[in-house]
């Protein structure tokens, strides 16, 4: 077996509005569209993903919150209906996914070896969270690539932001070792919004784009500053600023996916490709890609 590698990482936010706007057959509610800038951004990312031909997609979701350790989906086939507890009016999605259990177990074991509390989720009746499903649908609506789902341990909220993100850094390193050991060609998905200030009321209809704009100007400015740095590949500077960004823009990257992904990729000073930016109920969302094949840091299929 050849050594596995991470071939790309994507910032892949999960507002269920994007699925709602697209009207796939799996989602019961219907819309007249909406959030096209972000949906078209995902279309570009989908095309790139198709070329990469990964063996597996790993997604770290802030809506599978675990208190006691970092958990990994560990049932080969999971299916059911996922209803968003916050937006049940727009997201009632029939999902069906295949888990790469061997890789999930390797990640879990490696995380434990590196000192993290980790656990496999073996219950076949488990309802996969809407963050995981939305990110996976938006990046690969065919659902034909096995996945590894990773929970967001609440350490950045229970401990300090810095202590929590240190754990995510370790989780990223453990993920990389597991991918290498199992020979997988893997794409990482950080399911995170940037600025997370949002409106408290929903427009009627929800897809009325005349109501959509950044909720918070300072948060928007922070998003632009961070995206600009990411586009320039100034990753070290991004992570120097990250705690301040989290604090001042209420950024969802606090939950750890962004740090996990960059740690797993070993924080390459590599320019990210911005597929698009847009707001959803006022929050800032960017779809960005770090393609390690194009950068010569990973092998093409």
């Amino acid at each position, binding site marked *: 077996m050849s050594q596995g590698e991470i071939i790309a990482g994507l910032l892949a936010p999960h507002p269920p509005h994007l699925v709602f706007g697209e009207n796939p057959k799996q989602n019961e509610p219907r819309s007249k569209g909406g959030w096209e800038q972000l949906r078209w951004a995902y279309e570009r990312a989908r095309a790139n993903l198709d070329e990469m031909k990964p063996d597996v997609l790993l997604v770290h979701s802030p809506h*599978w*919150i*675990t*208190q*006691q*350790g970092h*958990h990994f989906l560990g049932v080969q086939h999971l299916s*059911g*209906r*996922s*209803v968003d*507890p*916050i*937006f*049940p009016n727009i997201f*009632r999605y029939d999902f069906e996914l295949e888990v790469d259990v061997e890789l999930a177990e390797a990640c879990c074991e490696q995380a434990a070896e590196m000192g993290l*509390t980790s*656990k496999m*989720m*073996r*219950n076949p*009746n*488990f*309802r996969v*969270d809407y963050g995981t499903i939305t990110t996976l649908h938006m990046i690969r609506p065919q659902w034909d690539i096995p996945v590894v789902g990773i*929970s967001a341990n609440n*350490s950045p909220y*229970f401990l300090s932001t810095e202590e929590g993100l240190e754990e995510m850094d370790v989780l990223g390193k453990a993920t990389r070792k597991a991918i290498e050991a199992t020979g997988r060609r893997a794409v990482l998905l950080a399911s995170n919004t940037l600025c997370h200030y*949002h*409106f*408290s*009321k*929903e427009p009627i209809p929800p897809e009325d784009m005349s109501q959509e704009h950044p909720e918070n100007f300072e948060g928007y400015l922070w998003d632009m500053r961070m995206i600009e740095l990411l586009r320039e590949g100034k990753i070290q500077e991004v992570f120097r600023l990250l705690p301040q960004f989290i604090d001042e823009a209420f950024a969802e990257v606090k939950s750890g996916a962004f740090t996990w992904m960059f740690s797993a990729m070993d924080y390459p000073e590599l320019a990210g490709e911005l597929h698009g930016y847009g707001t959803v*109920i006022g929050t800032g969302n960017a779809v960005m890609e770090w393609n390690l094949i194009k950068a010569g840091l990973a092998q093409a299929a």
Partner: protein
Amino acid sequence: MSVVSAFLIPGSPLPYVQRDNPPWGAMADALDKVGAALADSEPDVIAIYSTQWIAVLDQLWQVRPNPTGLHVDENWHEYGELPFNMRTDTALAEAAIAATDSYGIRSKGVDYDHFPVDTGTIVASNFLDPDNQFKSIVTANNLYHDWGITENLGRVVREQSEQLGRRVALVGVGGLSGTFFRQVIDIADDHIASEQEDSWNQRLLAMMTAGDIEALNNACPEYAQQARADMGFKHFAYLLGGMGGDFSGAVVHHYGALYGTGGAVVEFKL
């Protein structure tokens, strides 16, 4: 009198899914006991506020007539499933939704198959009404609602129950102190993770037992901070609002640990 009984109980699934573990079994026994007390109060409806039903936009109320399903807790999935079968008092829920406007709260009903009913609501329903005798009204914990708004939710339930002639058992579902063990423990040795939080929990429970409402009102903000109380202890604000800000004392049927956090089963004397 619309409110005929009131209870504070923990929303952790551990006593329900693993009651043969002695520390959690004692909690389960106490929950069984207050289930009997609730039935003795002969309510028409159980009015549940659970810290684990998280809302962000609007105040959500369950209006599906018969929420049923099988839930797996996102953290404690290894202990198995939580089945649920509830009957909603839809008339009371709709009345509450309409009435919150006058308190400046925008509410919305939730009526969806497969809606993820939260662990705390299921634990409350299954322990306190195992034979599904009573209808329920269930509302969410909006993260942006403070103590005062949450008290008003309790008031709305009380007032609308009076309007509709319902006898109501109020149930606030949530924990006490919030520090939990982040590593795997021997569950037979579960205990409150922080001595300081343990002390705070006991002080607060003593105030409840004594019916010292003024002391509770003064202490709760500091308690919420010092003991890292579950969701700012807002489930007690809901109960206070529902009880009209008044009760004469309380019986603490059990106080104990739930993976390091504090939990108590409390029956209030009205």
